[in-house]
Each structure stands twice: as C-alpha cells, then as structure tokens.
C-alpha cells in the first residue's frame, strides 16, 4: 500500500506540475486532494435486470441553460439534446480524481461506441459532456477533448462563458462543485466534486443519476433501452 501511495503521490505531483498548478500540491497527501468513497474502485459483479423489466420514475426536471459548444458557438443544453434521450456529464479536463472525471469520460467513451453500434440508440440518444471549469476549459480545449475521444455517436462537448453562467446550470442539476483551496485561500487548480452523470428523457426529466458505485456503461445502456421501451409503450 505504501508503494502505491508513493507512486500515486508522484503521479499527482507530475500532473500538478504539468497543469501549471501550485507546486505545493507535491507535498500533499493524495488522499487530501480527492474524495474517497467506501465503494472504492467500483466494478459491477452482476448482470443488470432486463431492459423494460423495471421503471425509472422521474427524479427532477431540468430547464434549458446557455452553453458554448466546442467550436465556440453559443448554444443551449436543449439545443444539444433536441428532445432526445440524453446522458449529461459534468467534468473538468485536468481532473486527476480516480473516481471523478476520468471515470466519467471513460464510461461515456464506452457508451459512445456502444450507441454508435446500435441503430435505434444512435438515432435516439445524445451524450453531452459539459465542463465546470469555464476559466480553463475553453471551447478550444473542449475541442481537443472531442478530438481525443473521436465520437462515433452524437456526443457533444460544451462549456460555459463564465462561472456566473455555470452556477444556475450546476444548481439545476444538483451537481456540487467547489474549488479546492489552500489554507491561505489560493486555488489549488483542483475541484472538489461528487461525480454525477444524469440520464434525461425527451421531456428533460432526470430519470437516473449515476455516481461512484452506480456509473457503469452496461447499466446506463440498460436504462436507455428501458426508456426506449417505455416511449414505445406510451400512447402518442
């Protein structure tokens, strides 16, 4: 364990240096930098229930919010989702949290490939990755993220103009985010955030929220298929 921790500390220090963040991070125990979850490195050991064999009651309804797309054009959340089923994830591109943004992006990457290979899902589902770090995650950086993932399905990358524009969006989704600061108030360049990925139906209702212990591509695909079956059953 000690070896792991030292190695992790070295990796974190390297990230901090690369990201141009405060050198003081090098001296910090990695456990101080990230959230720790009891569930740890979550790996499902089960087969999800069959699509359509269960229901996903609406949890909340979100409203439209202004965004900037990865090409720098003004857009909105609803302009991206266009009434389709949507998987919406909030990240920042320099996140180093084991159970944070890298996990979110990896799951959306898997979803993207699976959706692209399924004609019905490809026609009905949009993936949206939105940054909560408008200062550094410019449209240009989101475009780099997009090119890195080379979406095969309708996977959109977006950011916002400012923290002022971002705040109501995060509040609407109940997505906690806070800047992780040194005791003297200086920002470390890192955020404290609970990883959340949201499943929206065509009426912008949140039908599931995935966090550590629940975020798994197979499970999200099962839920998407459940919503498609539900839409097929409902009149009109």
């Amino acid at each position, binding site marked *: 364990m000690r070896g792991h921790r030292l190695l992790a500390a070295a990796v974190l220090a390297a990230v901090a240096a690369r990201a141009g963040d405060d050198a003081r991070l090098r001296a910090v*125990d990695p456990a*101080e930098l990230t959230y720790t979850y009891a569930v740890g490195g979550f790996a499902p050991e089960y087969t999800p*229930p069959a699509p359509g064999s269960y229901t996903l009651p609406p949890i909340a309804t979100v409203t439209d919010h202004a965004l900037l797309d990865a090409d720098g054009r003004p857009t909105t959340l609803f302009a991206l989702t266009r009434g389709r089923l949507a998987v919406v994830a909030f990240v920042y591109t320099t996140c180093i949290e084991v159970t944070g943004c*890298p*996990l979110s992006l990896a799951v959306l990457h898997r979803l993207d490939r699976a959706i692209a290979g399924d004609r019905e899902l490809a026609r009905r589902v949009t993936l949206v990755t939105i940054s909560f770090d408008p200062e550094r995650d410019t449209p240009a950086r989101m475009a*780099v993220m997009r*090119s890195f993932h080379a979406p095969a399905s309708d996977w959109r990358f977006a950011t916002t103009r400012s923290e002022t524009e971002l705040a109501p969006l995060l509040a609407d989704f109940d997505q906690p985010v806070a800047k992780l600061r040194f005791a003297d108030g200086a920002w470390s360049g890192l955020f404290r955030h*609970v990883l959340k990925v949201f499943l929206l139906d065509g009426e912008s209702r949140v039908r599931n929220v995935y966090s550590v212990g629940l975020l798994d591509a197979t*499970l999200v695909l*099962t839920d998407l298929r459940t919503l498609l079956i539900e839409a097929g059953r409902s009149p009109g």
Partner: protein
Amino acid sequence: MARRVSFSLMVGAALAALLSGAIPARADETCMSPYMPKITGQEDYVYVWTLGIEGVGDGSDKLVTIGANPADAARYGKVISSVSVAGRHEAHHAGFGDDRRHLWAGGLDDSKIWVFDVAPDPARPKLVRTVDSFVKDSDGVVGPHTFFALPGRMLITGLSNAKDHGGKTALVEYNNDGKFIQTLWLPDPAAYGYDARVQPRLNRMLTSSFTGWNNYMTDLRKVIADAEAMKHFGNTVVVWDFHARKAIQTLEVPGAPLEIRWALQPRHNYAFTTAALKSKIWLIEQQDDGTFKASDVADIANPMDVPLPVDISLSADDRFLFVDTFMDGTCRVYDVSDPHQPKLVHTEKIGSQVNMVSETWDGKRVYFTSSLLANWDKTGKDNEQFLKAYGWDGKQLTALFAVDFLKEKLGRPHIMHFGQERFYKNQIYAGEAGPLAAAR
C-alpha cells in the same frame, strides 16, 4: 494542448488502475452509504440526533454537536452547539445525502423529516428544510427510519403505516430537494421494515424488519406483557434487485432483525444482522447460485435473558463486529474473521443502557449513545443518557470521554454521524495534526 489533455487522461487512467479496489480508507463511520464521499482522518465533531425530554432543557428534539478532535482540547468532549426542531417527534435515525453535506433526520412518531446543512459551519449545523408531508407523499407510510444516500436521492425506510399503525410498511425515495419520487411497499408476507443497505457491486439491497407505531410508541414493559403485541414483530430479511427495486427473495430471520451491515472488503459477499428478540447474530451470505442464505451463527449473551441486541458496527477490515445489548448496557466485540464462527473477544460495560455504536473507519475510535426509544428507555437511576467515546486497539475498549446528556439538559441521544472542518471547507491541509487549527 493536445499533448497536455492526453497526458491528464493517461495519468487518470493510470491512477485508477493503481488504486482500484485498494483505496486507503481511514476515517468516517463504517456504516455510511457507500455512494457518498467519506471524511478522511480524525473527525472533529460528532452530530447526535437527540430526543427531547419534557422538563429537560427546552424539551425539544435537537441535533447536538460534540467536539471530538483531541487536538482541539478546549472543545474535546464538550457540547459545541445544538439546534432544536421544536417539539418531541421521537427523533431516531439520520443520514447524510449523496454529497455528505445535508443531514436528513427523522421523527418516528409524527413522521416529520428535518434537513440540516453542515457545510457552511460544520460546528454549527443549520436547519434548512422541513418535510412534513411524508405520510401524504408516500401514500400512508409512517415512521421514517433509515436515511440511506443514493446518487441524486435519499432512500428512506418506513416502520409503519397510517392505516393501522402496524408493521406493514414501505421504502420511500425523495430527491435531494425534498421532492417525493416513489414508494415501494414491502412484499407480503414480509411486509415489515427497519433498515435498508445496498451492496453496489452485487446490485443487491437487504431490508430488515422491526415493528409498527403501535408497539414502538408503547411502553416496552407493556409490549412484552402483551402476547398479542409480541406477535407483531418482523421475522424476515428481504433481498432486493436494487436497480430494479424488486424484492426477489425472503429470508426467515426470526425475532426482529434490525441493523444490517454489509461486509466491506472485496469478495466478501455477505452481511450481518442481529435479531433483537432472539439475541442472535445472523449471517446473510450469497451462495454460488447467486441467491442468499441466512444462518444463525452465534448467540449474543444468554438469549433467555433477552439482552436485546440493538445497534451493531462492523470494522472496515471485516474483522470485528461490535454488538450493543440494551438491557445490560454492554458492548460485545466479536472476531468475525470467519463469518460463520464469530468469537467473542471483548466485553465492555458501557452504562446502565446502551443503543447505538459507531466505529471509525480507521478502527481506532468507537462511539456509543444510550437511548433506544422514549418509551423503551429505562427509568429512574438506570435512565442514563450519554454519548461515550472509546479508543479501540484491537483488543480492548478504553474510555476517552463522556457527555452526560441529562446534566447538559439535552435529552436522549440517539444516532451519531461525524463532521470535519477540512472536508467542508474545501481546503488542503498538510498533515493530520494541523487541520483544525488551520481551519480557524
């Protein structure tokens, strides 16, 4: 730019591979919902959801904050703050939401729920929301008991129902804004409820079973003397397909199985519960075919004496099970390294009565409170009401501090949760010793 982003992604993946399944776990309580982030290191505060007593202080139910960090000597073991909710509602259990910021607390009598925000000032939680429509929202569920955080929502177990105040009850879900989502009634003939705990990697939830409002709001001596009342206790643990929220198996666990604790280590596909009326430890274990089996693996004290095991706490390494018995005010520590053969390794008299027990994730500290229910607590000089902190060295419990909740005019202390300055201040600190000082 491309190189930099790629590097971050690569490092993230490397880090995930490094730490998967082996994330260091050092503090917080071992029984918290696995879906929420944990505090790490020494807890600064213990939040105690406390029942009011007529004529004691303001007589109201309240959330009490006790200093628990020995580095803060002036406040260590002292009452720092309390927030009253006006009136007595049979304050019982509480639980944090998915961001570990909002503490939901319930009243078993009138089914009210209060939500406290501990983040702005962790030493002084603030009441930010009251939900007084639980019975109406849920279509007749009474007695909000366990509060178990799920991503984006709160899962609440009921104990009773509005129709006959018996034990038939349900699970109820709210979103984090306090809006009702759904009610899931427990299946006949396993319709009673108490605790609910999810093992995420197995997609399995277990629910246990206690008794309804008619019994838990009645004097314990009257209940025990009433043969008809004694028939109305749960005898089952239900296994659920968690994602589908469907009951898939009913296990016979006679004598009111209460708290459920899943093992915390990888490949440990089992949980413990204790049957209050039969005084036994039960192992709920997944079989090779995926179904679950319940086995009575140990007696707790002499079951004929009805010692009434109440709360239990499992150490993070799945080695020790702390079992409180209310009647003799004793904590028994079992070595459950072999879950089929618990071995009693330590016995400690905590007080004249004891109910809740919470062990820290680092295994070094254990906290106890005294109250069970307003009408079930002992009377006269045996009605001690306390929070007591002990150190645990793997062999014995050693007293650290005690707070007398009667002397402090607070009431009957019940469930405990931990708080910490640095977790909520979003600050980075350089070591274990300095965080509290740095926060001020």
